[in-house]
């Protein structure tokens, strides 16, 4: 007993000696953070806002690393500008997340377009589905917002809190984490560098020569994530030999519905973006995309109108497969939209922006977390932009990660511990994979033009149109309220 106490004394006093001198160094060590977010895009900024908002995480010291000059500016959006072609369709779940963190009020100050109807059909003319927000007693199905509006809103949101964040206008060059070790105990100091050597901090080096340390590094740096690469996360994925052509177009009147038509080479979507403008996301093969990018404007407008109307095939008739009668036995209560007829989208009269082309790919990180490193958004999963779900999955990641960090703070965990971060992975990975798989099925189903398959697809459309529990389930999933695609609608 006596010897035990004596040893206590010795170690305590040894520590004490160093602590006195080190504590001062520690306080003016500006490069040590709780969280370093690499990538200040919408997903990374949403994480920062969410951390700033939650009572348990608002004390955290956060660094945001991004060389994008937009992070340094405030409110650079001119309302008179025509809509930027880079838009996102945000789901009701994302909207309520933005409301929670206090960012939605800034979006409302800019151009945004709610829509309460959606029509999906295909070129074979065999079937169509119309969705109405009132089917599920909601006001809206979603909202289309320009990415720059999302970004500046999040930036305004975080500027208006007293959150301790530092923006590094630089790029990540390297990242290091030493294995956890207490073996340096003898020369114990609490200097940042010593904490790094003990595996209690990750080190992040920047292109401007600065370096910083953090308990947790968040890779929010997009599909080509360097964090993912440096941390050694493997990915699964492939390129679709497809490109998306995106642009803003103008109508004679305001569009209030989201339209999507499946064409042989891929879907074309026409999304309302406010005023008399719509956004086009048109998926096609790379050869076509370069043609469509360069063809003259009038011809392009004509092609778009053609693709959204009679091009490739006739309009679907609701009775072509017996429709409502065929499904009458499992319709349950009738949805409002089941009685809505097929409509032709509003005509495009003018191109209102440059045409931009993006290659499409699918990529999924096999793991989202390791010690002191976590991936969110496109860094963890890049999806087909089919249903505009990509960015919503990213926001769900931000939301989930901030909650997990708060849970960790609540019980006094080290927020970089992998056992804590796994909770985030366990929540998000199955949900992201489910969405990716579903989009992949759609993608594959439309990459083949084959008679029986076409009829099957049409039957699926009709089923989705007429079977109300199924329809409600689809809407609920697409709005982000339900995390798993088909909780069997018949039993729900």
């Amino acid at each position, binding site marked *: *007993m006596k*010897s*035990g*106490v*004596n*040893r*206590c*004394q*010795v*170690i*305590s*006093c*040894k*520590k*004490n*000696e160093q*602590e006195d001198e080190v*504590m001062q160094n*520690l306080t003016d060590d500006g490069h040590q953070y709780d969280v370093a977010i690499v990538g200040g895009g919408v997903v990374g900024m949403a994480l920062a806002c969410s951390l700033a908002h939650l*009572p*348990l*995480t608002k*004390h955290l010291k956060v660094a945001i690393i991004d060389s994008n000059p937009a992070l340094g500016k405030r409110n650079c959006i001119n309302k008179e500008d025509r809509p930027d072609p880079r838009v996102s369709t945000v789901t009701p779940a994302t909207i309520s997340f933005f409301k929670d963190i206090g960012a939605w009020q800034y979006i409302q100050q800019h151009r945004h377009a709610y829509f309460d109807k959606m029509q999906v059909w295909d070129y074979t003319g065999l079937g169509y589905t119309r969705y109405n927000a009132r089917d599920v007693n909601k006001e809206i199905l979603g909202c289309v917002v320009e990415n720059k509006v999302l970004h500046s809103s999040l930036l305004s949101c975080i500027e208006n809190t007293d959150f301790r964040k530092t923006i590094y206008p630089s790029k990540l060059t390297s990242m290091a984490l030493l294995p*956890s*070790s*207490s*073996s*340096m*105990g*003898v020369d*114990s100091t*609490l200097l940042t560098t*010593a*904490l790094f050597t*003990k595996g*209690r901090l990750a080190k992040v080096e920047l292109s401007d020569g600065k370096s910083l340390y953090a308990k947790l590094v968040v890779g929010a740096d997009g599909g080509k994530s360097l964090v993912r690469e440096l941390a050694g996360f493997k990915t699964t994925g492939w390129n679709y030999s497809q490109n998306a052509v995106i642009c803003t177009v103008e109508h004679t009147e305001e569009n209030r519905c989201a339209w999507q038509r499946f064409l042989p080479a891929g879907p074309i979507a026409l999304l309302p973006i406010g005023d008399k403008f719509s956004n086009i996301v048109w998926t096609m093969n790379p050869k076509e995309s370069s043609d469509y990018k360069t063809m003259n404007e009038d011809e392009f407008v004509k092609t778009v109108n053609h693709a959204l109307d009679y091009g490739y095939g006739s309009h679907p008739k609701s009775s072509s497969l017996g429709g409502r009668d065929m499904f009458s036995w499992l319709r349950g209560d009738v949805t409002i939209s089941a009685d809505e007829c097929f409509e032709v989208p509003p005509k495009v009269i003018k191109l209102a922006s440059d045409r931009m082309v993006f290659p499409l790919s699918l990529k999924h990180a096999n793991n989202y977390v390791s010690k002191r490193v976590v991936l969110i958004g496109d860094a963890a999963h890049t999806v087909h932009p089919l249903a505009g779900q990509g960015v919503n999955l990213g926001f769900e990641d931000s939301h989930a990660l901030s909650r997990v960090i708060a*849970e*960790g*703070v*609540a*019980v*006094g*965990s*080290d927020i970089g*511990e*992998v*056992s*804590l971060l796994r909770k985030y992975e*366990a929540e998000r990975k199955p949900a992201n994979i489910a969405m990716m798989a579903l989009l992949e099925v759609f993608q594959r189903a439309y990459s083949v033009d084959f008679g029986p398959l076409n009829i099957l697809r049409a039957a699926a459309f009709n089923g989705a149109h007429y079977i109300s529990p199924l329809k409600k389930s689809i809407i609920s999933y697409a709005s982000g309220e339900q995390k798993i695609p088909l909780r069997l609608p018949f039993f729900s």
Partner: protein
Amino acid sequence: MNLGWRMVRKLRIVNARNGAFFNARFFSDSTTQLPLASVTVDPFSNTTKTNNNININSTSSSLKHLELAKFAAIADTWWDSEGPFKPLHVMNPTRLAFIRSTLCRHFGKDPNCAKPFEGLKIVDVGCGGGILSEPLARMGATVTGVDAVDKNIKIARLHAGSDPETSTIEYCCTTAGMCQFWFISCVRLSFLVIEHVADPAEFCKSLAALTIEGGANVISTINRSMRAYATAIVAAEYILRWVKEMTGFVYNPLTGRWSLSDDVGVNFIAFGTKNTQ
């Protein structure tokens, strides 16, 4: 008295690295009934420096580098969440959530605060490698970890020292019974020790003795023996009358997570307060 005086001297030395501030608070919060505490405040805050200097010289000789390296290796297994102590790591957040909610309620602390335990002094009896002490320190508590195994204390100290948020934890190799002269705490926690204790009832009494009036006790164990459960809880509840809230832990093998339940048969955690009668 003579023995008590010696114990306090030792405590003072262990606490030395926190300096006079900690010491003063430590004793001034202890309300009456413990004349020993009030007697010792002044002399020891004055002698802090002296103690330091004396002991530093002996550091290098009394602790060999090799020995320390050996403990460091074990420390890493204690703290490897995938290692031999995995069940403990998995269960930890659940019991910490219980402690957080019961203590916040008892002491009227804000549960939405990141460091709700600021101002509370907690003794973790049977602290092992410090798996519980460290989170409690991050939650703002002034923590003293006590373990009868010298090796555990060394491991705990090494690990806590590598994070500024936990480096304030005091670790001491002793038993609950021996603590009572000098740990006058608001909250006492003892985890996973009851099953190893020869006389659980006596153990509970010594825990109660450590707690100040209005303080709280939390006991938890992975209860391998029904006897330990029965004696500890019966003793706690009926002899000392301080069990206020008790809950069981159940493990869900599908999710790999622990949650709280009404079934106290296997693992349990209990909370009690000490009130002025």
